């Protein structure tokens, strides 16, 4: 298995290479100059800036300079934050997003699987219907609506939680809940659907016929199979949730990496944009791999390719 993992990681290198290439070239060929401000910059200064950032000459020359740096693990200096390297910005903000994201991810899994399973065994009863309506709401209400409502209720009216900020344990609660709800809702619906399918299968009937307790049927047999689509879903979901959400991090004023995904592109900052895209794609590849391995662990019929 380790050989397969190694091979998959090797395959990631060309993928990341293509992603970074496309990002850098797109940012550089899109309109907008990273150094322009409201006031016109003397051409000599502009030239010097472009020289210092290796952003002069043809786009292929710029690209070559950049890739040479990336190969050495140097993602360049942000054109927007002129005293900071992209590595430094990622190192400071990514752990914040991952702290929040891992908590939200765990909550989403716990709530989602519990609710989904609970609803599945009560198929078509009132409780099931209500929970599924709630789940549908959770999926469809965007976080920029959900978050302000939660702030209004818990921080402004009830005053039990802070409105925003980062640094104390109570400041992580509201954003983690808001971040986890859409994922929890999706997982709940997925679990329920999958479990309902599985409970109809022959091996479940066999298990029941053997006289196994309902617990044993559910946990030892049905859930083990029903969990497969959830594993498939959570790979990319984990990548998304751990690399931060621009909406949640902006609304709660959290110093994570999320806002950089949008701000760096808006500011035509080629190095920062490529940097965050690199981070996100690495996470995506990594968690897809983890999901595949989990597939294999849970269901030995699956072959790791």
């Amino acid at each position, binding site marked *: 298995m380790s050989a397969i993992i190694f091979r998959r990681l090797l395959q990631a290198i060309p993928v990341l290479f293509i992603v970074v290439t496309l990002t850098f070239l797109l940012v550089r060929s*899109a*309109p*907008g*100059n990273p*150094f*322009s*401000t*409201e*006031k*016109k*910059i*003397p051409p*000599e*200064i502009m030239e*010097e*800036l472009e020289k*210092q950032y290796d952003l002069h000459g043809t786009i292929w020359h710029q690209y070559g300079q950049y890739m040479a740096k990336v190969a050495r693990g140097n993602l360049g200096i942000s054109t*927007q934050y*002129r*005293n*900071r390297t992209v590595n430094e910005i990622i190192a*400071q903000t*990514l*752990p*914040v*997003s991952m*702290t929040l994201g*891992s*908590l939200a991810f*765990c*909550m989403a*899994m*716990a709530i989602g*699987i*519990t609710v989904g*399973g*609970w609803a599945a*065994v*009560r*198929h078509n009863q009132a409780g099931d219907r209500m929970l599924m309506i709630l789940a549908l709401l959770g999926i469809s209400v965007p976080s920029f609506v959900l978050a302000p409502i939660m*702030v209004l209720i818990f*921080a*402004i009216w009830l*005053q039990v939680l*802070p*409105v*925003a*900020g980062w*640094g*104390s344990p109570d400041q992580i609660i509201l954003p983690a809940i808001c971040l986890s709800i859409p994922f929890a809702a999706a997982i709940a619906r997925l679990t329920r659907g999958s479990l309902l399918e599985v409970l109809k299968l022959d091996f479940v009937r066999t298990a029941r016929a053997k006289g196994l307790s*309902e*617990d044993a049927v*559910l*946990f030892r047999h049905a859930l083990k199979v029903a969990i497969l689509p959830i594993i498939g879903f959570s790979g990319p979901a984990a990548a998304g949730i751990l690399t931060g959400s621009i909406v949640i991090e*902006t*609304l709660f*004023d959290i*110093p994570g990496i999320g806002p950089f995904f949008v701000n760096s592109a*808006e*500011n035509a900052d080629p190095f920062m944009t490529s940097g965050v895209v690199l981070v996100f794609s690495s996470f995506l590849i990594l968690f897809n791999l983890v999901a595949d391995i989990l597939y294999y662990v849970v269901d030995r019929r699956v072959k790791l390719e």
Partner: protein
Amino acid sequence: MGVSGTRSYRRAIPVVWVAGIATLFLAFFYFLGGWSLSSEADLTLCNGDEPQTLDPAIITGQLEGRIALALFEGLTTRNAQGDIIPGMAESWTRSPDGLTYTFKIRADAKWSNGDPLTAQDFLNSWERALSPETASEYSYQLYYLVNGEAYGTGKLKDFSQVGVKAPDDRTLVVTLWHPTAYFLELTSFQTLCPVHLPTVKKYGKDWTKPGKMVSNGPYVLKEWRLNDYILLEANPYYWRPVPIHRIKVLPTNNPTACFNLFYSHKTDLIMDKGSIPAELVQSIKDKPYFHSEPFGGTAFMRFNVKRKPFDDVRVRKALAMALDKEDIVTKITRAGEKAADTLVPPGNAGYTSPQGLPYNVAEARQLLAEAGYPDGKGFPTVDLLYAKRGTSDNAAAEIQALWKRDLGITSIRLRGQEWKVYLNSMEEIDFDLCLSAWVGDYSDPQTFLDMFVTDGGNNDTGWSDPTYDQMLETSENTADPAKRMQIMHDMEKILVEDEVPIVPIDFLVGVSLYEPGKLGGFEPNFVDDHRWGEFYIPKGNP
């Protein structure tokens, strides 16, 4: 199938497991530094966004400038009212021709590490700011010095030929090209602040980090966590005591989050209109914590005079006269802005603007008909360019509707762009109409009027008038203030009454939120430049 599962799901395995894993994760990231306890301060304020840099020579933005001016101090500084007062220089003299300034540096001027601050520090810092290698976008603030521009653009290599000398530790002699009336305002600006060169040399681009930075202003940089907060602490070596010991600066850029923080007393001061939800302004306008003050900035529209139909001055005048600015300030901007018929905002000492073109629909329709577009018929399709920020979406749509209402023009297309893309389009004059704004660098009409000199870097209209250029040059060389103001009055008349390459829309206001009983020293001032060293907490408050 009757599954009696109520019982069976009691052993909710995921919950226990997941709680355990979550705790582990949290502990792990806590040690990684993803989570840190933040420090307490005597005053917390929302500054609008994360500063791009704190290097005073490199800063271009207002929010960075505010922090830099708490950390650094130039030869002059400002009091709470915005007036120029002595800073690192305790006094100065000006030669009768207005070309030479001699500054006397304070005997007790010191850096925050205790080093004495000398005239040589200023000279070296100005050399650094001007040097092409520093690539300072604001180095043109030093182009007023003799040979400043030549050195700044690399044509002159020898800095000793630039108009600044330090004959001894406490004397700085500056020679200018023109009798620049506002020079003492420039010396209070961050670009002309001194930096501690040994520190800059030692740490390179990392010199602005806490623990490394050495500064000379009222505060020193104590902590700086990216997108989290900046903590400033009073500088013990500053030449006068500072009332507030610790200031915490939040980079919150989301207006809702800013206002929530203020509303729940987590921040004491919000300094920008952009940090307050636009839809809330109307309902909090009469609260005691809402403050709105005019300052030296104007929103206006640029015409591309090189393109049809705006190459015709009658069309430009017609559109200018049919723009109902009262409607815009009451319906769109709504924070107390005043409709503007002139480019230069009121409040410049000794200066009166011309009348400008009044709102007059009948005359506007007449002019438009004369130009060949009666009732807007046959008016070509034109793009209205604007940056997608703040209320500009609404402003652009309102202007489109107003011209339709008053002139019958239905062929205006809105073209909103992201900030950097918008700047690019504006610079290349790739627009028909462009919503713009200008905030003066100093309190003198010149900062508005020199924009429209032929091929000026910020002209961006394609408009050119040799008479106007000639008048600008004459005014720059006129030492008599009254005469100079008269020339500038005539220049503005050309701009807003005769040639009309632009339409003034409204005079900007500075909006801030703070409880008057909790913060003092935040006085209305024309340059919207509130030095944090002037802030104090009124008596009777903890």
